[in-house]
């Protein structure tokens, strides 16, 4: 790896490409030199406030350059950055501050759990000097708290070299060209947005931070003004773009080098739409977990776009499969197992949870809750999350497969499948749908029966006003199972 840390990459480019546009947000932009000066100035300030190596600093996210200045300033002085989602409530903020024994909170919320300050107090800090030497590759850099869609929120601790490794997974995975200009409309506190930003930084590219895509004109203004060559987004963002602006994204065919997706699977209908609108654009789906980031990549505008295929391992990633008992297996479509991932991008541990770390990570291998297999050509396939996969009378059913079929029926605007208890089969699938016009549930069922094996058909279909989702678009299945 070329760099020991993301901040080292930023420093390097502040010297070799000082006037290169580094970051853009709603309020302005910075070059690499300007960005690094602000990081140094803020780092001096934090040291003056008594922040020491190893301290944890919690910050409420904002889709702004300031937030990333703070992130790297904290890291520069050897402290650990703990980003929180923008709308985290006071209870969540206090909980995270207590869990991490944070020395400082930066954000708009009021808290008595630790010393706090507003982000505005850090405005205008700059320095041409560095307060200290840059952090070592193996020192702690960041704790990312998961969204908790499948249980309690977990703190995942990373070291600097893992951030560089995941950045390289992305950079090489999307065949990033020099002078890349990437629009990132995803929350910059979350692993998806952060890791795409890291990739742009290690390559000396430009990252444009947008606060979502619903203010759709901004997206197209940024695409045009900065001649953006890439976009990184979740499928829910694409759905909004297509709904609000129709085929307009197709006007950027020829300008866009690639679009990369992640966080959740891209529905087939939208995949097909995008392939039609952007035939010359590489379209990637990046699979990974917070614990082992960006571990597989698939160019679904390429020849390996098979159903349920997530592509091949990225440059720092090694994928293997084990059974329920934790034994390595030779996997196949008829013999799937739990996917494991190893490589430099993996987490160091679950923060202060050695038991969970030991159950998830053995010999450097991070076990996911995803069920899948590796085919004879080395392609990786996924059936679904182990705790999402519904065991109905011994048959394994992937909710995603049912959702894909139901989603193609006219009038189904959104849908999600969850497990329902059944006295005979143990569990059976139940389908929840959101409609955008009147439809016949019976006809929907018949439509699905024509496409799915009998044991995969939902035993009940319920129309609800909204599918519960997390802020990054993932289906909140626990909430559905409570309905």
């Amino acid at each position, binding site marked *: 790896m070329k760099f020991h840390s993301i901040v080292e990459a930023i420093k390097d480019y502040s010297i070799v490409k000082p006037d290169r546009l580094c970051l853009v947000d709603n309020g302005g932009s910075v070059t690499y030199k300007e960005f690094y000066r602000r990081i140094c100035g803020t780092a001096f300030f934090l040291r003056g406030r008594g922040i020491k190596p190893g301290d944890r600093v919690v910050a409420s996210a904002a889709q702004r350059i300031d937030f990333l200045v703070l992130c790297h300033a904290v890291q520069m002085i050897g402290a650990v950055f703990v980003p929180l989602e923008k709308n985290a409530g006071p209870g969540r903020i206090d909980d995270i501050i207590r869990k991490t024994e944070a020395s400082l909170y930066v954000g708009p919320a009021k808290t008595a759990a630790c010393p706090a300050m507003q982000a505005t107090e850090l405005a205008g800090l700059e320095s041409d000097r560095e307060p200290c030497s840059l952090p070592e590759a193996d020192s702690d850099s960041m704790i990312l708290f998961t969204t908790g869609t499948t249980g309690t929120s977990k703190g995942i601790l990373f070291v600097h070299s893992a951030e560089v490794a995941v950045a390289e997974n992305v950079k090489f995975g999307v065949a990033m060209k020099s002078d890349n200009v990437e629009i990132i409309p995803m929350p910059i506190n979350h692993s998806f947005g952060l890791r795409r930003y890291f990739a742009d930084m290690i390559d000396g590219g430009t990252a444009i931070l947008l606060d979502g895509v619903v*203010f*759709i*004109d901004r997206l*197209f203004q940024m695409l045009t003004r900065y001649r953006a060559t890439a976009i990184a987004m979740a499928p829910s963002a694409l759905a*909004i773009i297509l709904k*609000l602006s129709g085929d307009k994204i197709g006007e950027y065919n020829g300008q866009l080098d690639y679009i990369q997706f992640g966080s959740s699977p891209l529905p087939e209908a939208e995949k097909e739409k995008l392939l039609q609108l952007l035939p010359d654009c590489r379209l990637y789906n990046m699979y990974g977990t917070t614990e082992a980031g960006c571990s597989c990549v698939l160019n679904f505008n390429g020849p390996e776009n098979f159903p349920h295929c997530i592509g091949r391992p990225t440059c720092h990633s090694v994928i293997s499969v084990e059974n329920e008992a934790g034994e390595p297996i030779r996997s196949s479509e008829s013999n799937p197992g739990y996917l494991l991932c190893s490589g430099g991008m993996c987490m160091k541990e679950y923060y202060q949870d050695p038991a969970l770390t030991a159950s998830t990570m053995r010999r450097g291998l991070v076990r996911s809750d995803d069920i899948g297999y590796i085919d004879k050509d080395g392609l990786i396939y996924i059936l679904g999350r182990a705790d999402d996969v519904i065991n109905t009378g011994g048959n394994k059913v992937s909710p995603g497969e049912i959702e894909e079929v139901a989603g193609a029926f006219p009038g189904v605007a959104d849908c999600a499948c969850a497990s329902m208890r059944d006295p005979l089969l143990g569990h059976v699938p139940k389908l929840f749908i959101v409609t*955008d016009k009147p439809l016949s549930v019976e006809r929907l069922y018949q439509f699905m029966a024509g496409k799915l094996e009998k044991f995969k058909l939902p035993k009940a279909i319920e129309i609800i006003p909204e599918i519960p989702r997390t802020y990054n678009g993932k289906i909140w299945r626990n909430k559905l199972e409570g309905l």
Partner: protein
Amino acid sequence: MDDFIKVLLKATPNVDYKNEKHLVDDGIIDSLDIVSIISELSDAYDLNIPPAEITPENFNSAEAMKALVDRLLED
């Protein structure tokens, strides 16, 4: 205005449209809420909201959204 708020509440049932005047700035409504509101307004008033009008200012309050709809209906 009450009738207009009823339309908004179909999209976002738990929002206090009478008192909240910084819906976007304060994160009371998010991207998906705005998409739902646009759908409801489009259906209720049979209009199309052009992308250039989908701005934080136009969705920051019920009054702003009403002004937007009135303007589009005049055009």
